[in-house]
């Protein structure tokens, strides 16, 4: 079987208005579609679906996926987010090939600012 691409990635929320403010205003992602319990954002090359599972009677669970969001400069973007009240988990890590910094959305979904600075080996 052939997988063509990732159509969307999802995180769950318990408060769709709060999620709209975070992903739309704080992170600045464009909204693709908007419903009462479901929002779709453009997260670069893929759609980020934010969904309230209570609308279909399912339990909320935070995602440990740690979606690695590429930004031009991790330190600069972190400072901008911190100025907007976002809390980060620990310092910026330099792995020798990239910088990253972990943070969470208001529902506790794990996210990451990420920038690789070393060239790929291939």
């Amino acid at each position: 079987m052939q997988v063509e691409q990732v159509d969307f990635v999802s995180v769950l929320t318990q408060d769709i208005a709060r999620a709209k403010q975070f992903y739309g205003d704080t992170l600045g992602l464009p909204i693709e579609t908007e419903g009462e319990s479901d929002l779709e954002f453009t997260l670069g090359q893929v759609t980020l679906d934010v969904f309230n599972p209570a609308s279909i009677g399912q339990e909320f669970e935070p995602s440990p996926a740690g979606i690695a969001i590429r930004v031009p400069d991790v330190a600069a973007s972190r400072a901008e987010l911190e100025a907007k009240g976002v809390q980060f988990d620990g310092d910026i890590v330099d792995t020798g090939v990239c910088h990253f910094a972990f943070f969470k959305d208001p529902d506790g979904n794990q996210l990451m600012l990420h920038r690789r600075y070393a060239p790929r080996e291939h």
Partner: protein
Amino acid sequence: MSESQATSLAGVGVERVDYIRIPVKDIEEAKHFYGELLGLSLDPNSPHDDWVEFQAGNVTLAVMTPHTHEYEFSPLPPGAIALRVRDVAEAKAKLEAEGLQVNEMWDSGQCRGAGVKDPSGNPILLHRRYAPYPDGTMP
């Protein structure tokens, strides 16, 4: 630069998704699932034995073991990753022939989907939109 890119960069400079972590308990059985059964290509330059990267078209899936990265395993929540396949029924049948349990296929009126779990219990959605997008283009 398109309007949507300009809007995106007006925030904190979000450019794209570099990768998504898929936490697993066992790398070898995960490599079989993602590489052999789903047919994703394994990046030969994956950095470590406990962090292997698969290309799923537009997004890199970083299959990794949390217990070797200093945190505890917990699976992704339902619907976390939707993989586009040509035909959901065909993909479901193929995985079932390999002995996997795939949920009943649903049809939303715009797309079809069927859920399957990887060996660590991460939910993967086999997905295909068949309705045109609002601008008339097809997936």
